C-alpha cells in the first residue's frame, strides 16, 4: 500500500480529523519557538540594516526622523553622505593605508608562522614542549601588556609612526596563535608521507616546501581570512603606533571623526559602511572558510 493511499483514506475518516488536529496542535506548540527565533534575528540584523539605510539619506533627514521612514515613499535616498565622507581630507588615503597595513602584515606573519609550526610539529629538540607551552600562554596575553615597551622599541629603532612598525607589531601579536594552530594541523598530517620522503632522500627543506606547505593550504586559507580581517578591523594597535602619524588607517580616521564631531556625526554612517563592506563581502562569499577560521580561533583570547 502506498503512502498516498494511506493519507487519502485517513483524511476522510475520524482518525484523519484527529491527525490534522494533532498536527495543528504540534504547529501551535512551535509558534513560541518561531517567535523567539525571529525576535533574536531581528535584534541581530535590524541595527545593521537601519544604519546602512541611514547612510543613503541626507543629513537633515537623518536628524529629523529615524531610518524606518525610508521604508515608505518618499524614500529620499541620496549618496550625499558618501560624497561628504570621501571629501574629508585623508579619508580616501586612509583606505589605502588600511590596505598597505593589512596585506603585508598578513603575509609576513603567516609565512613566519608556517615555518615555525613545521619545526614544532616535525622536529624533536630539547625544550620543545616548554617553548610550546610558552606559546600557548602567550596566546591569551593581552596586547595592552606589551604596548609601552614595543612603542619604546620602535622609537629606539626609528620606526615609530611608520607603516612597517604596525606590520611588525601585528606579526608579533598574531604569531603565537598561528604557530599553535598550524602546528596542530601540520602535526595531524600522516607521518608515513614524511617518512617515505625522508627515505627517498628529501631533506627538511624539500619536505617542508613540497609536502607540508601544500597540504596545509586549507588551514592557511582560513587563517589568511581570519588574520586579514582581524587587522583590517583593528583599532588599538593602529591607534597606539599610528595614532598621531599621517598614515592612519580607516578605523582610526573614523574613530577620530566620531569622537570629535559633536552633532552632525550621522553622515559618518557612510564611512562605517565603507569600512565594513569588505569584511561583510568576505563573510558572504567565503562563508565556509570564514566560519572555519573563526571556530578554529575559539581557543584564542
Amino acid at each position: 500500500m502506498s503512502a498516498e493511499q494511506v493519507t487519502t483514506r485517513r483524511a476522510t475518516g475520524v482518525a484523519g480529523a484527529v491527525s490534522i488536529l494533532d498536527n495543528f496542535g504540534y504547529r501551535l506548540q512551535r509558534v513560541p519557538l518561531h517567535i523567539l527565533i525571529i525576535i533574536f534575528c531581528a535584534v541581530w540584523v535590524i541595527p545593521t540594516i537601519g544604519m546602512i539605510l541611514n547612510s543613503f539619506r541626507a543629513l537633515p533627514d537623518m536628524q529629523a526622523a529615524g531610518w524606518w521612514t525610508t521604508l515608505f515613499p518618499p524614500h529620499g535616498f541620496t549618496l550625499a553622505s558618501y560624497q561628504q565622507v570621501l571629501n574629508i581630507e585623508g579619508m580616501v588615503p586612509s583606505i589605502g593605508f588600511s590596505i598597505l597595513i593589512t596585506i603585508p602584515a598578513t603575509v609576513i606573519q603567516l609565512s613566519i608562522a608556517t615555518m615555525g609550526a613545521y619545526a614544532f610539529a616535525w622536529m624533536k629538540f630539547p625544550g620543545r614542549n616548554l617553548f610550546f607551552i610558552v606559546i600557548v600562554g602567550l596566546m591569551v596575553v593581552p596586547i595592552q601588556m606589551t604596548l609601552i615597551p614595543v612603542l619604546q622599541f620602535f622609537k629606539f629603532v626609528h620606526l615609530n609612526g611608520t607603516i612597517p612598525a604596525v606590520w611588525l607589531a601585528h606579526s608579533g601579536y598574531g604569531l603565537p596563535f598561528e604557530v599553535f594552530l598550524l602546528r596542530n594541523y601540520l602535526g595531524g598530517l600522516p607521518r608515513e608521507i614524511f617518512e617515505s620522503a625522508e627515505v627517498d632522500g628529501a631533506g627538511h627543506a624539500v619536505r617542508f616546501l613540497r609536502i607540508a606547505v601544500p597540504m596545509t593550504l586549507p588551514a592557511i586559507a582560513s587563517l589568511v581570512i581570519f588574520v586579514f580581517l582581524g587587522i583590517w578591523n583593528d583599532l588599538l594597535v593602529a591607534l597606539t603606533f599610528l595614532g598621531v602619524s599621517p598614515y592612519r588607517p580607516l578605523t582610526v580616521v573614523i574613530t577620530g571623526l566620531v569622537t570629535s564631531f559633536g552633532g552632525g556625526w550621522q553622515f559618518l554612517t557612510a564611512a562605517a559602511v565603507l569600512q565594513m563592506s569588505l569584511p561583510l563581502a568576505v563573510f558572504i562569499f567565503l562563508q565556509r572558510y570564514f566560519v572555519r577560521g573563526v571556530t578554529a580561533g575559539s581557543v584564542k583570547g
Partner: protein
Amino acid sequence: VAGITPDQIITAVVAVVGVPLVLLGYIILGEQVIERLPDRIQGWIRPYFWALPAVGFATIFMVYPLIRTVIISFRNSADTDWIGWANYKYFFTFPDTLTSLRNSLLWLVFYTFFAVFFGLVIAILVDRVRYETIAKIAIFLPVPISAVAASIIWKFMFDYQPPGAPQTGTLNALLSVAHHDPVAWLVNSTTNNAALIFVGIWTATGFAMVIISASLKAISSEVLEAARIDGANEFQIVRLVVTPLLWPTITVVGTTMIINALKTFDIVYVMTNGAYNTDVIATQMFSQLQHSHYGRAAAVGVVLFLAIVPLLVVNIRRFQQQEEQR
C-alpha cells in the same frame, strides 16, 4: 593627514614578495649549510634554526615587553627612578581608575554570561527549525563587523533627542510609541554601561553560537531519542541531557569571552571614550599611555594581565590534556 606616496606602495610590495622569498632563501641556504655538518650537530642545531624567526618575533614583541612592562610599572613616568608600589596605589585608590575596575567587572560578568547564554539558547532553538542556516547567518552577521562600525550602528540605536523632539534613535522611538520619556542611554549612568555591554554581547553572540552549534550537532541523536522514549520533555532534554554534554564547549567559549571582556577597548573608546563613568581597564590604560604616564599605564596593564593569569593556566592545562590524547 598625507596622501599615499609611491615609496609606501613599493615598500609594501617589497614586503609582500620579499618576506616569503627571504624565508625561502633562509630555509634553502640554511639547510645547505646544516646538511654538511656532522649528524649529531645537525640534529641539535636544525630545530632552533627553523623555529628561530617565529620564536624571535614572539620574544621581541611579547616576552621581552611583558617583562619590561612589569619593570616600568614600578618606575616613574619619565622612567628615571624606582617608585615602589606608587603606580599600583594610584590605581587602587584613584576614583576614576576604581570606576574602570568596577566597569570591567561588570563586563566580565554580564558580557560573558549573556554572550554564552544567548549563543547556547540560539544554537538550541535554531537546531529545531528548517530555516536554521538563514537564522544562523543573521546572528553571525555582526561578527565580521569591526567594533568601530558596530559602535556607529549602535549610536543610532541609542540616539537621544529631548522629550518632544522626534526621536531618531530606534530604541527611543519605540519608547515614544509606548508613551515613555526618551532615555539618554549612553549618558545616563544607570543605563550606559549596560548599553555598551549589550553592544559587546551583540558582536560576540554569533561566535559563541557557531561553536556551541558545532558541538550540538555532534551529540548523537540516539541519546536524545532514548531520553524522549523515557518520557523526558524538550525542556528536560535541554537541561538534563544537552547542556551537560555541551559543558566542555561552554567552558571553552566562556574562557574566551572572559578574556575578551577584560580586554574590551574599541566599543567603549568609540561610543563614549570612557565618559560618564563608562571607562574600563583597557581604555583607562590607553588614556594613561596618551598622557605619557607610562608607569601608571604599565601598572594597569599588569593588573589586567594578573586577571588573565588564571585563564592562562587553564589554557595550558587544557593543552597538556589534549597532548596526552594525541
